[in-house]
């Protein structure tokens, strides 16, 4: 069927900020959808609140709105744009829910917008677990028995009926938030109470457990002509009970006979038809009883998903792109297969390799959180690896994870502990599996404890067996055959080196002597049955090499690996832009990355894609094969930077800022010296290896101090110490844990600047010229990690004299470090002194945000500078003040706000600090700062109240300034209540407010008020460690009951301004294309 002609303009809703359970896979799918629809001649309107996405680039869609994903803003956009249709299936759960909301609110009808891709009824059936189960039963398929409950007593009765363990799922929460498994009645009573709280409709599903069964996923597609294909089967290494997002998964399925698989395929086809998903992709999950083959249906997602992104990367079949084309009426047989060119997309990919995915967790950032893996997803990212065998794929995936320190078992490992670790799955489960097998626990027992399929355990056994034989030889004695066998079973040079205790480099050298070298094979959707035209490659140890590198000017871009807190999608965005720019300039671009969620690992993004781990060994193998003119390490965050020096030593031509400069900037001593030389102030600081040394140093510097390990990104394990005891404890602990601090990497101690305003600056430099790209003023004061604080561009309160200094220092630093490309500087301004906190001569987290605000694609420009082009030739819109160039600042305010995963980690304090904990960010744009801030807050899920009650409790230090905030709030017509001290402070400033009890002062206290929804906004600023504790409960309650909670006075006053600005202000929206055009005109007038 040809594409629809009754539709011209299509609205696409993105998935908003990166959160656990919804990461950059939706930037990938959304970007693909935009490209696909525009290539078919449709006009695409895109809405997403997340600036750190390729999909929100002004080039990706025709009209781009970075606005809050809420009903009122969507309606405003629809009212201006008047799209003919809405594609709801590429924006994750967020996009889908919002689309449903718009449809049900009658907004789509009001403006005559058609839903394409999935009908409202189909979405509802698939999303409503009970309706869905009915559909399955009707088809003669089994589903776990279940019932909806709204009260604890009912729930307990039902659970007793079903028998324990039972699965608890709160209704309408994302990624299983609040979901759990109860093994007995006591536990159940508690868990169900939480689940009901977690559910916005105070409702939960109690479900029969199929714990320990095998879990499978099918990624399927269907078109208007009812053509149905399975793109990929995924088998979970971990059994039912561990969320697929937290499971190691393998494609294709390994332990199904054809009869079992076809039964699953028939079931999937029947389900998608009965549910009524007419076009597009769906994800359907099954559980199979390993003992009897009994199959039950678990759930369906009627949209592209994390798994469909994985399936696309695993097979080379671009699900989101095809789904978009099917949504406008095309059929699978009308769409050619990009990779084979000659054959159509109406087929089922077949693969001749194995794909393994491993999740990445970061519990270390959330002390006190429960690390047990269960039905609620807790991982922040994932890696994927391709190998010719399961063993090879698994090993490559393991090394793609980049553990911050090598895993070591505790000093004493008892059988009891082993059993427990295998029985209760945690993030380090895979290590424990190997540990147990190495210690001789039988495969049978391991399978029994873990419920992992014996086939997988057998694979692990075989790997260990090869290792044993290798360990028995040595660097000089090992035969070529055995070395090859070891590499074929996936072992890295590092691992082999450990077995022989030699250097990895020696192993590599020996390998080359013995001619044991990897080759590259292609991902081609057809197991080589047809010729492939897209160089999408992976390494393996076999006979034939298919890389066929082309001989023309070529640049290799190293990606950023798995998403993690502090190194997220922003860096993938930069890598993609480098590739886009250099492609335009006629270079052959080669991308290396191992994160399946990303745009960078779309085979369309670069000329060549190597889906490989970002380790020295794997990258060198690629460079040996490609022999590029340049390698870019600046854009992928810390991951490629950590390789830079070694790569250079091995002859790689790193372009842009020299690795030595990057290293210098990271080395506090040498960098301190440089700052002194440049006469740029920096907080007093030093480094120590031992507790006593640290205490002495802290004393000398003066409290409070900031204590942290060296070489970290995202402020890992950083604390503010207000007394020496803390310093001592920290260093002692750090040295105990090891990994954090060792001979090479001391503990760093900095004078902590209190009440300082933090400023982020991004700049471009080409070796001769420096251009300041953006000066961002943080809303929270220094001490709250730059990644966790909101900031605004242009700055709001900085005096011209301060800005002068900042510009001057920035240029000095860029020149001193001979930056070629991007540089980020963090400043703290305390009592009119500008201190440098840190300099990162590389792409920073804020690049996409500044690019969206200024309309200048900084990463693209930087990539061009790295290949030798000059700023002066690139004609960027800048202004010049006494010799210093700065990009024309926006004539509007762009506020960036972080988004936190606290709702996934119960019991964790939400107070912000120098340790970064946000997973994502949003941007709010408006002509006034207050409104921009309010929009950003709304986009981040904090709806600032228009009326109602504000609770206020600030520390003594803030009491001095709190009056202004309260005046604003009262002026905006809100009621203010405060704790005794704060109320007193206000009274003395002439403002009378009602005072309420603190938690420990009596009832009803503030937490009671929060629980009973008597408070609409919480402002609570703590200082010093002691106060942290008694106020935790307030903030936790706020998170749990989803009440906006502000923890700094600066943010509070911004919020107050926002609330006032919102009062009686119509919803305003603007497309980036217009904003940038307006700005261009404005600057034209100026110059």
């Amino acid at each position: 069927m040809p594409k629809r002609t009754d539709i011209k303009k299509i609205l696409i809703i993105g998935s908003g900020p990166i959160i656990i359970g919804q990461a950059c896979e939706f930037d990938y799918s959304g970007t693909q959808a935009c490209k696909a629809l525009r290539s078919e001649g449709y006009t695409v309107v895109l809405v997403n609140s997340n600036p750190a996405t390729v999909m929100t680039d002004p080039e990706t869609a025709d009209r781009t709105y970075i606005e809050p994903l809420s009903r009122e803003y969507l309606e405003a956009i629809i009212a201006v744009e008047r799209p003919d249709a809405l594609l709801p299936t590429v924006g994750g759960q967020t996009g889908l829910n919002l689309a449903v909301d718009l449809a049900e609110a009658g907004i789509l009808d009001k403006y005559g917008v058609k839903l394409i891709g999935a009908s409202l009824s189909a979405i509802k059936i698939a999303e409503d677990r009970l309706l869905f189960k009915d559909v399955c039963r009707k088809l003669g398929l089994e589903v776990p028995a279940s019932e909806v409950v709204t009260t604890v007593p009912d729930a307990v009765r039902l659970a007793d009926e079903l028998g324990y363990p039972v699965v608890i799922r709160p209704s309408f929460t994302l990624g299983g938030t609040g979901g759990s498994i109860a093994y007995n009645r006591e536990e159940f009573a508690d868990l169900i109470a939480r689940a009901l709280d977690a559910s916005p409709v105070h409702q939960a599903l109690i479900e029969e457990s199929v714990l320990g069964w095998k879990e499978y996923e099918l990624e399927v597609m269907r078109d208007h002509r009812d053509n149905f294909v399975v793109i990929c089967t995924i088998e979970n290494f971990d059994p039912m009970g561990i969320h697929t997002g937290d499971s190691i998964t393998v494609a294709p399925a390994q332990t199904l006979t054809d009869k079992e698989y076809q039964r699953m395929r028939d079931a999937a086809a029947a389900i998608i038809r009965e549910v009524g998903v007419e076009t597009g992709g769906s994800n359907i999950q099954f559980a199979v009883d390993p003992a009897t083959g009994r199959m039950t249906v678990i759930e369906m997602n009627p949209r592209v998903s994390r798994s469909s992104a994985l399936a696309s990367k695993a097979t080379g079949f671009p699900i989101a792109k095809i789904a978009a084309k099917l949504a406008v009426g095309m059929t699978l047989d009308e769409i050619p297969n990009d990779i084979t060119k000659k054959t159509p997309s109406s087929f089922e990919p077949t693969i001749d390799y194995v794909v393994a995915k491993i999740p990445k967790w970061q519990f270390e950032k959330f002390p006190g959180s429960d690390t047990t893996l269960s039905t609620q997803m807790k991982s922040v990212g994932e890696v994927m690896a391709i190998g010719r065998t399961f063993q090879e794929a698994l090993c490559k995936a393991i090394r793609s994870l980049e553990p911050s320190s090598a895993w070591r078992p505790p000093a004493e490992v008892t059988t009891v502990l082993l059993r427990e670790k295998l029985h209760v799955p945690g993030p380090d489960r895979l290590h424990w599996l190997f540990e147990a097998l190495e210690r001789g626990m039988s495969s049978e027992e391991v399978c029994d404890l873990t419920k992992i399929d014996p086939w997988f355990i057998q694979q692990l056994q075989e790997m260990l067996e090869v290792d044993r034989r290798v360990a028995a030889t040595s660097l000089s004695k090992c035969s070529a055959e055995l070395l090859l066998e070891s590499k074929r079973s996936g072992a890295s040079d590092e691992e082999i080196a450990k077995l022989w205790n030699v250097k990895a480099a020696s192993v590599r050298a020996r390998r080359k002597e013995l001619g044991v070298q990897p080759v590259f094979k292609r991902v081609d959707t057809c197991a080589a049955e047809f010729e492939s035209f897209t160089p999408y490659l992976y390494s393996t140890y076999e006979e034939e090499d298919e890389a066929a590198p082309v001989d023309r000017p070529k640049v290799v871009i190293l990606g950023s690996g798995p998403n993690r807190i502090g190194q997220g999608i922003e860096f993938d965005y930069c890598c993609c832009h480098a590739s886009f720019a250099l492609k335009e300039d006629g270079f052959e671009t080669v991308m290396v990355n191992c994160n399946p969620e990303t745009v960078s690992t779309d085979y369309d993004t670069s000329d060549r894609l190597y889906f490989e781990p970002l380790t020295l060994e794997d990258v060198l193998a690629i460079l040996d094969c490609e022999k590029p003119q340049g390698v870019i390490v600046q854009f992928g965050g810390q991951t490629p930077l950590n390789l830079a020096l070694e790569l250079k030593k091995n002859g790689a031509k790193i372009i842009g800022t020299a690795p030595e400069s990057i290293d210098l900037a990271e080395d506090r001593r040498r960098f301190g010296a440089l700052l002194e030389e440049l006469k740029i102030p920096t907080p007093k600081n030093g480094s120590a290896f031992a507790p006593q040394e640290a205490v002495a140093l802290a004393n000398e510097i003066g409290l409070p101090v900031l204590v942290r390990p060296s070489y970290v990104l995202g402020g890992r394990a950083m604390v503010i110490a207000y007394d020496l005891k803390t310093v001592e404890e920290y260093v002692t602990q750090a040295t105990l844990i090891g990994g954090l601090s060792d001979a090479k990497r001391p503990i760093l101690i900095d004078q902590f600047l209190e009440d300082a305003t933090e400023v982020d600056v991004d700049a471009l430099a080409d070796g001769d010229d420096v251009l300041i790209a953006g000066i961002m003023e943080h809303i929270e004061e220094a001490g709250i990690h730059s990644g966790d604080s909101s900031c605004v561009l242009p700055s709001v309160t900085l005096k011209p004299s301060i800005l002068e200094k900042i510009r001057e220092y920035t240029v000095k630093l860029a020149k001193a470090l001979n930056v070629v490309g991007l540089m980020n500087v963090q400043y703290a301004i305390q009592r009119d002194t500008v201190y440098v906190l840190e300099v990162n001569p590389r792409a920073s987290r804020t690049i996409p945000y500044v690019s969206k605000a200024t309309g200048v694609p900084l990463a693209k420009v930087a990539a061009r500078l790295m290949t030798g082009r000059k700023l002066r030739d690139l004609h960027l819109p800048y202004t010049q003040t006494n010799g210093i160039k700065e990009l024309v600042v926006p004539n509007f305010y762009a506020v960036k706000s972080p988004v936190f995963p606290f709702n996934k980690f119960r019991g964790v304090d939400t107070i912000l600090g120098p340790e970064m904990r946000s997973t994502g960010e949003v941007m709010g744009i408006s002509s006034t700062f207050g409104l921009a801030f309010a929009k950003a807050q709304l986009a981040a899920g904090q709806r600032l109240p228009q009326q109602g009650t504000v609770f206020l409790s600030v520390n003594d230090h803030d009491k001095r300034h709190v009056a202004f905030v309260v005046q604003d709030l009262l002026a905006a017509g809100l009621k203010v209540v405060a704790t005794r001290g704060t109320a007193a402070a206000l009274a003395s400033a002439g403002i009378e407010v009602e005072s309420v009890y603190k938690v420990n002062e009596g009832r009803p206290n503030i937490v009671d008020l929060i629980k009973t929804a008597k408070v609409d906004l919480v402002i609570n600023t703590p200082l010093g460690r002691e106060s942290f504790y008694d106020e935790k409960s307030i903030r936790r309650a706020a998170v749990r009951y989803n009440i906006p909670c502000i923890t700094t006075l600066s943010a509070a006053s911004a919020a107050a301004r926002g609330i006032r600005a919102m009062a009686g202000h119509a919803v305003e929206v603007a497309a980036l294309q217009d904003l940038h055009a307006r700005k261009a005109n404005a600057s034209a007038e100026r110059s």
Partner: protein
Amino acid sequence: MEDTLTQQQAGRAILALEDGRVFKGRAAGARTRRGGEVVFNTSLTGYQEVFTDPSYSGQMVCLTYPHIGNVGANLDDEESPKPYIEGLVVREFSALASNWRSTETTQKYLERHGVPVIWDMDTRALVRHLRQVGALRGMVSTDETPAEKLILEAKALPTMAGQELASRVSASAKYEWKDGSIGIASPILTDAVAGADAKRKRRRVVAYDFGIKQNILRLLVDHDCDVTVVPAQTSAEDVLGLKPDGVFLSNGPGDPEPIHYAVSNIRKLVGRVPIFGICLGHQLCGLALGGKTFKLKFGHHGANHPVQNLLTKKVEITSQNHGFCVDPASLPSSEVEITHVNLNDHTNEGMRHRTLPLFSVQYHPEASPGPHDARYLFGQFVEMMNGAR
């Protein structure tokens, strides 16, 4: 059981092709050496069904999916009483069988049936070679025979073109078939509904065995047919003597051209009784209706080939296993209508007679292994038998 494999692992294996290309790997299965035409199959599942498909006689199969043997072997997954492949070529061969239906390891199973296995070699390189130069004759040896000797032996093997293998694999005497699909393979609700009206009445079907896959017989039984299987060379008269409501022409190995007896029998049956042909059966119909067949470069062997039904425009994901093909241009268009086409290479996949009750498909609607998309054809056969009354 794992020991048997590790013993075997010690041994080396060689795959030698007629063009002199040699692959070295490890040995498994039986300790022997055998030859045949080397083909590759891209199906991700159903290796045991492939081993036991008689259409593979005279061929060595390279399975492109790297992990083979994971789910072991069991009697229900056989398409005939024994494996017909001459040899197996795979990347990894599982020491362990992990599946609730498995009764023995794949290693034991192939050893028991004397099939040699070469594994731990670059199978993708082999596939790319075959894709470029076309199907080749080859020898798999697990008995330490030197490569040079194997190459000569490979050259000496008969070429597939011109080989009449059907009579070699066909049943020697006629027999009744009674079994339907086992529980796990029987269609789920929605499938069953299709062609339900045509059910109930029992039909007598005579099935020519040119190397028939048992799943065809099971599906005929599922569709309420009483099935009599007859040897390949059974005369049309004898078949008609059995008073069939319909005649089925099975799949089978080798080149259709030399099977003259079958072609002339079919000519006599056309128009006198409803006919349904699959694979070789389809090619024989083509010849009987005056068409020609030709050999494909490396054939179609897999479970993911898109076939379009020209009557409904719908695409079926099909199971395929054939090296020869009917040339649609050679068919008298006045009598024959092309009903199915392969969307990968646009070769012919199905036809029907414009006026007489006959239709046939090149691919495998009985799947096993493969998707069930084309099962409706069995319902169509039943309807044709009803219409013919």
